[in-house]
């Protein structure tokens, strides 16, 4: 198995996903099977091949650095779970 208990715990923390202790071994086996499967990639020698990140190789278009949008704070905040005085509320992070 490619992934052990500790690695799964670390990935979950990096991904900000809470996983119940009792589910970690199931994740380890499922994810290891997928990683095993993708290892087939190593059958091809890619030495010297330039990676392709995107179908459009010319690079992405950049726009002029000017303001094009109007302020829509109210409509954007209307869908927020918790807000007050135009601010998003989260649990306290500084004592």
């Amino acid at each position: 198995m490619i992934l052990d208990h500790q690695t799964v715990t670390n990935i979950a923390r990096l991904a900000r996903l809470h996983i119940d202790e009792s589910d970690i071994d199931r994740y380890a086996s499922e994810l290891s099977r997928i990683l095993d499967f993708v290892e087939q990639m190593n059958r091809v020698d890619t030495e010297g091949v330039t990676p392709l990140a995107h179908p459009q190789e010319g690079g992405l278009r950049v726009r002029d650095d000017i303001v094009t949008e109007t302020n829509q704070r109210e409509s954007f905040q209307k869908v927020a779970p918790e807000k007050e005085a135009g601010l998003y509320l989260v649990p306290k992070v500084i004592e």
Partner: protein
Amino acid sequence: MHNKSLTQLAADLVAKRVSSVELTQHFLNRIEQQEILNAFITVDPGFSLAQAREADQRIQQGDKTALTGIPIAHKDIFCTKGMLTTCGSHILSNFVSPYDATVIDRLNQNGAVILGKTNMDEFAMGSSNETSHYGAVKNPWDHTTVPGGSSGGSAAAVAARIAPAATGTDTGGSIRQPAAFCGVTGFKPSYGQVSRFGMVAFASSLDQGGPIARSAEDAALLLNVIAGFDARDSTSVQRQTPDFVNEIGGDIEGLRIGLPVQFFGEGLDSDVEGIVREALREYEKLGATLIDIDLPNSALCVPCYYVLAPSEASSNLARYDGVRYGYRASGYSDLIDMYMKTRAEGFGDEVKRRIMIGTYALSAGYYDAYYLKAQKLRRLIAQDFAHAFERCDVIMGPTTPTTAFAIGAKTDDPIAMYLNDIYTISVNLAGLPGISIPAGLDNTGKPVGLQIIGQYFDDARVLNVAHRFQMTTDWHQRAPSRVQP
């Protein structure tokens, strides 16, 4: 009324044989009658009928375009102002977008009616529509089988004639595979053809929106409205958009059709192969020639994709944190715990698996072995296509290795599910246009899809080649037996 093409419906609207309100109500009734399919996540008759009344006024005033007054269903991945956009997920179960996706905006400007939001695999991650938080969709041809995915609700709705046409998105086959399973026409345009603005992101270098319709002609009509440059999408391509409807109809005498040997090998159902070969003979009768071609790296497109797509997804889905919109868990101890519980409760199993795989593939020490390796392979796959297109004009083969499978048959085996997309994924990796059209029925009466792949931005040719087949065959007009004419 529900068996008419978009062109026929538009003519009926102009001739006042029917109003947009009547047409919209007709389809709303049909959605209700076929609720068992679970093809829609959100239907809002008040919203749709208000749009229909506006469309009727426009038609009255002579201010109409090809789609004015025609109800279109939208995959629930396209943001719609004033109507829920859930993306098939619990985490967006309460999300009403403050703005419209460009695809929606363009259709609204043309006076089309939003018929509702269709069911889909959660965040478009799935090939069976079974990962939806809102339950599986049934295939109208056989209620015990899946409609395919991720645009399963859209394909099922068009097949069941409960929507005249629909939108979908395709990251690894999510328009073409459900179109094949449901016996409809599904077109994935070239990457950059249709704006991704307001289309919830899964894997940004692969995602592309497109039409699901009952014919290539209807797909071209819808594409005419949704395609084209959009300054709000940095990957939108700035070039002249052809009139896709005008471009279809030309003959295909001398067309060179490439057949990848890898698309006709092990794993392909013999019934599916026979039907695809029969369709190819039809093309020969139309004056095309068949050429064997080689796509040597195509078997590795699935592993390559299952590194790249989850990597991009793990980054894209980082935005769902319970702070600015969407679901937030109710009990938590601090900020990090709030993030972790919100995401644990908000995402389903397949989405979590992909976020975990992507996070691992991008993490320090593993990046080169997975992500970079997959990107190198992606170039080789794209080059295979470039070499093949030196010898042929389009590439054809089956859309899927089998017809629709039973609900539940592959839910416990992610890799078996992933292999459904073995013929479609490489097209996304290379950014090419591809279509699936109905080519026949297997020995159990289930639809088989023929896939046609074109060169980058040769979308009009792909649509025309599909249209030619539909001019001389009637597979695209077949409806599931439960659908009354």
